[in-house]
C-alpha cells in the first residue's frame, strides 16, 4: 500500500476499521450479519463487503460522525441484494452502538471499534510508527471488570498489530482494566479522560507501562477521529 496516500486517508481507514470492529464484536456475540469488511478504494472511496457498496470518503466520515449519507447509487446496480444486506448490517451496527439499554453489549462493541481504529494508527502512522519498533513482543490485555478479560492486542508478523478475543494461553505484558461497563462505555464514547480516569482508579493499568503509554497515545489519536 502506498504509505503517503494511506497517511492522508488514515482517518477514513480508522473509521472504516472501527465499523468493522463493531461488526466483528457483534458476530462473536452471536449476531447474524453480512460481511462488511472495509477496503480503501481509489478516487477517495471506501467499500464494504464484497457487494460493491461504496461511499465517498467524505460521505462515509459524515455517516460515522452521526449524520446520514447516501452510498453511491451506482453500487446498487452491480449486486442490489448484497448491497442491501450490507447496508442493513451497517445499520444494525449503528443501532447497537447507539442503544445504551444493553450497556455491557454497547460498551464491548464500542470499545472494540475504538481498539480497531487504534490498531490502524499503530500499523500505519507514518511519523510515529517507529516508536513501536521494539514492542513487537508486547501484548496488551484489555478487560472490563475485575478479571474479566475480553481482548488481547498484539503484533503478528502477518497483519501487524491486531485485536483478538482474549486467550489465556497468550502471554500478556501489560494490562488495562476498565473497572465497570459504565467506565468502559464512557471511555469508548470519548467522554472520559483516560489519564484522569487512571488517577481516579476507574481504569487500572499494570505491567509494562511504556507500552500502555504508547498504545494510549495512538488510542487518543483514534478517539479524536471517531468522536
Amino acid at each position: 500500500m502506498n504509505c503517503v496516500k494511506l497517511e492522508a486517508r488514515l482517518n477514513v481507514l480508522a473509521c472504516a476499521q472501527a465499523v468493522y470492529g463493531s461488526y466483528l464484536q457483534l458476530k462473536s456475540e452471536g449476531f447474524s450479519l453480512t460481511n462488511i469488511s472495509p477496503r480503501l478504494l481509489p478516487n477517495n472511496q471506501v467499500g464494504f463487503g464484497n457487494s460493491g457498496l461504496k461511499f465517498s470518503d467524505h460521505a462515509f466520515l459524515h455517516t460515522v460522525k452521526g449524520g446520514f449519507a447516501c452510498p453511491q447509487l451506482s453500487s446498487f446496480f452491480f449486486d442490489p441484494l448484497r448491497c442491501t444486506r450490507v447496508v442493513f448490517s451497517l445499520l444494525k451496527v449503528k443501532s447497537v452502538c447507539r442503544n445504551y439499554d444493553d450497556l455491557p453489549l454497547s460498551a464491548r462493541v464500542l470499545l472494540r471499534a475504538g481498539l480497531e481504529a487504534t490498531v490502524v494508527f499503530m500499523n500505519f502512522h507514518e511519523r510515529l510508527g517507529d516508536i513501536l519498533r521494539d514492542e513487537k513482543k508486547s501484548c496488551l490485555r484489555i478487560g472490563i471488570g475485575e478479571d474479566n478479560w475480553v481482548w488481547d492486542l498484539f503484533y503478528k508478523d502477518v497483519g501487524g498489530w491486531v485485536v483478538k478475543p482474549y486467550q489465556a494461553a497468550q502471554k500478556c505484558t501489560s494490562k488495562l482494566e476498565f473497572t465497570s461497563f459504565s467506565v468502559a462505555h464512557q471511555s469508548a464514547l470519548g467522554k472520559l479522560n483516560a489519564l484522569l480516569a487512571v488517577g481516579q482508579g476507574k481504569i487500572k493499568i499494570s505491567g509494562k507501562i511504556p507500552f500502555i503509554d504508547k498504545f494510549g497515545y495512538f488510542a487518543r489519536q483514534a478517539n479524536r477521529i471517531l468522536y
Partner: protein
Amino acid sequence: MVRSISETFFERAGKVIPGGIYGHVSPGAGLPENFPHYCHDASGCRFRDVDAKEWIDFMCGFGAVLHGFRNPCIEKAVEEQRKLGSIFNQPSPLMIDLAERLIEQIDFAQWAVFAKNGSDLTTWAIRVAREQTGKQYIIKATGAYHGVDAWCDPGFGGRISSDRQHILEFKWNQIDQLEDLTKKYSGKVAGLILTPYHHPSFSPSELPLPQFWQNVEEICNRNEMILILDDVRCGGRLHDQGSHRYFGFSPDLAVYSKALGNGYAISACVGREDLRESASEVFLTGSCWNDAYSMAAAIASLKLSIESKVAQSVLIKGQDFSSRLERVAQEQKIPLRMTGPPSMPYPWIEGDNNLFELQKFCRFCADEGLYFHPHHNWFISNSLDDEAINETMDKVSLALEKMKRVS
C-alpha cells in the same frame, strides 16, 4: 484506605490542569493506586500526604533532596537570603560564590553557569559542544533520560521528525556500537552525552563495565568529540566532587541539578577552560535563573556535602538498606535484587520482566506507608537513620506476608 482529600484535590486538578498531574507522578506513570496524589509536608526522611498518612520516603523528591527534607543548615542559609530578596535586575554576588565553590570542588571545572532544571543545561551543553566543534551530531545512550526537550524526551506528543535528526544512539556499555557510530559519522559528531551509569526507568540499572569510561574518553579524544556528563540525577550521591570521580574519568562538561539545591530549584553546568569561549557564545537566560534563594541553598548544600562526607554516607546507608531488603525478600522466597549504586538503588525481581510482581510489592508496601517506586530508581537521603531503616524492614516483612496471603 482513606484517600478522600487526595481524591478531592485530584478531582479539582482534573478540571484545571491537563491530565490532573503531569510528569513523574502523572496517572499515566502507572503508580500503585494507593499512592497519594498530593503531599502536605515533609521533614527528614518522612512525609505526610494530604490525608495525614505518614510515609517513609525513598524517592527524595525524585532525587532533589539529598540532606533530608527541610534540612536545618540549608533552611537557615535560605532564611538569611530571604531577608535580602531573591530576584533582582542583576544577579546577587552569591552567583560568584557558588561558581567559585563549584570550581574549587570539581577538579576539571574552570567555569560555571546556572539555570533552574537539568534540561535547561543538558540542552545548552550540547549546543556548546556544537559551537566548539562546528559539528552537528550528538550521541547518547538508548533509553537514557536527559530531560524534557524534544531531542531527548520520552514522550511522543508534538514531536516532528527533524527533532532527532542529529541524535544518534548506542546501547549502554556497547563500546563497539559507539565505535561504529563514530566511524559512520566520522567528522560529524560534536559530542557524546552520558549519565555516570545507566539508570533507565522500568529496567534494572547498569553500572559501567570495567574500562567503559576509559574507552569512552579515548573515543572522544580521538574523534575530537566533547564528552558531556549528565550528572543531574547522580550528582552528590556517588562522590562529593562529581560522579566522574567515583568512576575515574574526566568529562569536558558536566551538568548538575536535583541534589544541588536540596529541593531549591537550581542547575549548573561546569566546563573546561577551552570551552569557555564557546560557552559565552551560546545564549543562556531565564527569568528566574538568578534566584538567590536557590543559590544560597546550593552553597549550603555543597558545603554540607563536603563537611559531612554525604556521598560516602548515603552509599553506606544505601548498602545497609539494600542488603537488608534483599534478605527480607529472600526469606519470603522473592528473588529481589537491588541494582545500581546503593545510594540510588533500583529493585528488580528476577523473572518479572513486565513488572507485575514489583508493582504488587510496591503496592503492598505502600499500604504500610513505604514510598517505593516500581519504575524509577530510588534515592537514599542522608537523613535516613537506623530507626527508619529498622521500621522499614518491619513494614516490608508485614507487606510481604500480606502479599503472600493474597497470592
